[in-house]
């Protein structure tokens, strides 16, 4: 004790308090980081959705005249949606496998998820190709085109990011780096993949069903 010779009674100093470290409770730090990142991503898409509803509320007619049937439910979109939803389930299946220590099961599940993600991206690219070539509907086709391509395009970019994450997890899974106890990377990528899926469902409802 160096400073202060005098002992002061400090009623607030709870002598009996049990020290509790915080690291062993609740969520893993890395997973918490991913959840916070997803929180910020939710706000990013919230900004884009706000632009969508702002434009839609201000328009006399929605979709704008001449573009009523450009964006509609077609087999490509429906199949792509089903694929993305299935991929969320395969991803979760992989998480469950590795929690039980089943590395092969994890690798299979991640492999399937990865494939489904790539197929989704390919179908989205094909859908863009059809819209541009057959309907002449581009990002500069008024606010409707701008919103459609911005919303779906940024979702696609996030799917692409998820695919990269899946690739890393897949590679590490093949290398046998995950175990029942240590598979935070799998949990984190899985959380991100579910988020991407949920954003697509919201987009699908707003752009295709409620239009």
């Amino acid at each position: 004790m160096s400073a202060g010779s005098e002992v002061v009674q400090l009623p607030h100093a709870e002598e009996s308090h049990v020290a509790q470290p915080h690291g062993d409770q609740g969520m893993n730090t890395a997973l918490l980081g991913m959840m916070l990142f997803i929180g910020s991503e939710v706000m990013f898409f919230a900004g884009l959705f706000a632009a969508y509803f702002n434009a839609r509320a201000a328009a006399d007619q929605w979709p704008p005249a001449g573009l009523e049937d450009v964006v509609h439910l077609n087999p490509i979109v429906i199949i792509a949606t089903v694929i993305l939803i299935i991929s969320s389930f395969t991803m979760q299946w992989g998480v469950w496998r590795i929690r039980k220590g089943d590395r092969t099961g994890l690798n299979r599940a991640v492999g399937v998820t990865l494939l489904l993600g790539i197929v989704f991206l390919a179908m989205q690219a094909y859908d863009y190709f059809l819209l541009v070539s057959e309907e002449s509907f581009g990002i500069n086709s008024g606010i409707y085109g701008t919103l459609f391509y911005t919303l779906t395009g940024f979702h696609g970019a996030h799917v692409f990011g998820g695919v990269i994450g899946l690739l890393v997890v897949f590679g590490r899974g093949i290398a046998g780096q995950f175990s029942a106890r240590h598979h935070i990377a799998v949990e984190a990528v899985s959380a991100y993949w579910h988020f991407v899926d949920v954003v697509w469902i919201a987009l699908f409802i707003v752009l295709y069903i409620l239009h």
Partner: protein
Amino acid sequence: MAVLLVGLLTLIAGCAPAGAEGQAFPGFFAPPAASAEGQAIDSLYFYVFLIAVAVFLTVEGLLLWIVFRYRRRPRVDGLPPQTHGHNLLEIVWTAIPAAIVTMLFVATIDTLAFVEELDPKPQGVIIDVVGFQWQWTFNYPEEGLSFTGAGAEGPVMAVPVGERVRIRLEATDVIHSFYVPMFRYKLDVVPGRVNEFDIVVEEPGTYTGQCAEFCGLLHAEMYFTVEAMSRADYDAWVTEQQQQPEPTPGGSPPPDAATVEVTSVGVVEGYEPSELSVPADTPWLVDLTNSDQFAPHDFAIRGGNPDGSDWQGDPNADPGQQVIYEPPPLAAGQYEFYCSLHPNMVGTLRVGE
């Protein structure tokens, strides 16, 4: 220290003797507003100002006193009493500010309703204001008048005093803001949106207005003037303006005159082409096509008049319009041509080469 300094500044600012031209040096209380709405805002401001000064003096006074009273003195040992908080005090100094701001909010809403009141069926003068980089156009749709102008005064808007005037605002390019300090009011001028407000000007006079929303290069020079006058003067002004002949574009050019074609593309892009050649000392014509979809442009020549002053083409070419100007014959040499509305749009004119 803060109190002293601020008090000193207040004194300097508020009580200094009247400045030049009989107008007072500005202080915390500007000369009375010229509009009914502005006067309502002034009286609201007065009460808010009083409250703010009271809060300011209380807090700064307390702070100074505490710093003086509880500064550490030599040869004081031991710790001061270790107080951690006081719930009653917390409640008090939560409740007092809450009460003050509630009061202010009620007063705000009250004045706001008066200021923002819109006549559902405007019966008086209606003025359509169009803002564009960096000028104003004032249209009087019922009287068939239209004014556009630049410079330190800008175009003049005449309004009768004591009557409710409807002003409708729209922009063609970027956001501007219609602001007359003496009316204590501004409203943004937004492309794709019509903003409107009613105003009752009480005092006859000339009031300067200015664009208040940053709108690009020459934002600082986007002035206009409001002339408030009695109803009789206003009627006379309208008649006088209506009798002025409409300027006829182009005039009657000599059929054999050399014609150069030039397109004004935009405020940023300038003219296309930016270099023109004409023969020396012969009559010639400028065929200006304005392809800018937002702003009007014209054609002026630096030193183009025989007396050495700038020659300016009249009228402006509105967006999409074509205008033929007839500048005077020029001596051989190199000149600069520009748009008198947007002095950054310049080009080179070669004469007699």
